[in-house]
């Protein structure tokens, strides 16, 4: 269990994390979702005692990370695939980490095997691809067989097989009753992995809810309506308080009214409707909706970039 309370980090004039509070529970995968620069990594570094919060506090299983007697056995973290000395081999890196907690050599071999690093374990970590670096980071996180796992963007740079492997691994670990806290900037990744979602934007928590609530709740339901009298139906529905987009002629996208209400309005006024489809917002759309005002780096549409 991870509990953050009013966690704030200010770097000079820039506030990276602004009073974030949340709880990450055991036995489920909690996703930490936010666009780049939202404060995910900073929050994770503060959990691990690497960055000192400007204010607020965070505990893991009831204690600040620094105060745990055997921290690597309590929390395993992948914070950065490059948290390795580039000239040291993967095996020696893990061996040195293990030595701090008297973790036996057999466990080092075990995590190397688990993460599929056997073939490259004796090679310098500096020559690793991003994907191999991620595997080494995950191996280091698993070293102490910890109850809590914190993984910052673990699927970054992994090949499709690796992505599926990470997904299965975190689901398996959560199934064993462990706490798994996983960050990503990709909604689609979260949709397939997480049970619970904490969405962060510009250093603030925007949403903190079970993943299905975020899919169905926040993305407002819309209805696609095709009719041969779009202008007339537009007026009728607008009068009932709907907001309406007209992507093409004879097609209305109606937000704020139930399909049944729309059908009733059309029937009453003898407007023919030849399609009536409820649209469930995808998680991706819900995420864009949630964070559209909180993205730090906006990109221009392709057309404007090429101008």
């Amino acid at each position, binding site marked *: 269990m991870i509990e953050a309370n009013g966690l704030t980090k200010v770097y000079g004039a820039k506030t990276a994390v602004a009073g974030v509070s949340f709880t990450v529970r055991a036995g489920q995968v909690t996703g930490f979702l936010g666009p780049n620069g939202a404060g995910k990594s900073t929050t994770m570094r503060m959990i691990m005692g*690497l960055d*000192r919060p400007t204010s607020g506090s965070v505990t893991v299983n*009831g204690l600040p990370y620094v105060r*745990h007697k055997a921290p690597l056995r309590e929390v395993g973290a992948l914070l950065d695939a*490059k*948290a390795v000395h580039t000239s040291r081999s993967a095996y020696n890196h893990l*061996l040195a980490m293990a030595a*701090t907690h008297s973790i036996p050599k057999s466990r080092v071999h075990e995590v190397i095997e688990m993460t599929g690093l056997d073939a490259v374990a004796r090679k310098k970590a500096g020559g690793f691809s991003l994907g191999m670096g991620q595997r080494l980071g995950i191996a280091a996180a698993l070293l102490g067989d910890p*109850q809590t796992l914190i993984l910052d963007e673990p699927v970054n740079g992994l090949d499709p097989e690796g992505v599926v492997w990470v997904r299965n691994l975190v689901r398996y670990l959560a199934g064993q009753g462990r706490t798994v806290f996983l960050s990503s900037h990709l909604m689609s990744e979260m949709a397939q992995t997480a049970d619970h979602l904490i969405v962060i934007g510009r250093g603030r928590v925007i949403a903190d809810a079970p993943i299905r609530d975020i899919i169905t709740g926040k993305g407002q339901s819309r209805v696609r309506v095709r009719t041969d009298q779009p202008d007339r139906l537009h007026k009728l529905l607008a009068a009932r308080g709907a907001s309406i987009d007209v992507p093409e002629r004879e097609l209305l996208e109606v937000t704020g009214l139930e399909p049944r209400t729309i059908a009733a309005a059309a029937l009453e006024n003898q407007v023919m409707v030849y399609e009536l489809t409820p649209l469930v917002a995808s998680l991706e759309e819900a995420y864009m909706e949630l964070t559209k005002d909180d993205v730090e780096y906006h990109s221009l549409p392709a057309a404007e970039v090429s101008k």
Partner: protein
Amino acid sequence: MSAMATESTSSPEPAASAGSRNVRNGGRSLPGPTFLRVLNSEVIKFRTLLSTLILLASTVVVMVGFGALSAWGTGQFADAATRDPQAAARMASQGGDLAVSVPTSGIAFAQLILGSLGVLLMSSEFTTGMARSTFAAVPRRLPAFAAKLVVVMVTSFVVTAVSTWMAALVAVPILDNYGLTLDPGSSQSVKLLLVNSVYVAAVAAIGMALGTLIRNSAGGIMSLVGIFFVAPIAFQLIPGDFFKEARKYLPGNTVEPLTAAQHVPDTLETWQAALVLGGWVVIPVVLAAVLLKRRDV
């Protein structure tokens, strides 16, 4: 009674798992990062870097090489002195025994190499990102700092002492050729060996403190060179009594008073030199430790 019994048997699993987790949380049964374990980890880190081993080997080569060269040069000088009264006078002014300092003649380079090693051991943690792994494993940070300090100081001491000894063994037959004797077991020889080894260990500690404070390899090594090579020359060139006096307090100028058989004029007393060198180690090391504890990794 029966209700309690049913209650306790109805949920055996959560109780069991909570129990086992408590044992984990307390860390009572599972070992954490004690100083000795962290020291072991730092030793593994030290010996698994090729660059470290190369620097250690270079130190030995440089010390033995300079010992041999210096033995040859000293022999030539002594040879000339027997024919040239002026050279003989110069030799006498140096205290007579030239041979005894031959084995430590490469010390200026040993201190540069091992001082840089001290810088690199810590700065590379930050430049490579390894620091995040190191201080996640040892979140109290200071045990890792202390362990690294022990590793670098002990290694620097041992490598300097061993290579000085080897330089002496190489120098003895060369000096013998010129009719000069060097007794590596004499008290002055042993004193030179020990003081110089302690001194190089001190330089390595200063290097590590600089690496911790600056967190950048080039910056740390440049600062080290500044203190040990640039400052002594600059202080000599700047006119005025202040710099003449200040020069005595530079760490590189503490070795002479610490090893001299008799006090050399214009240098510190032995006890003063020991204090000054100690200060040069303790102040940056304490400062580095305090800032390491406080700063973000």
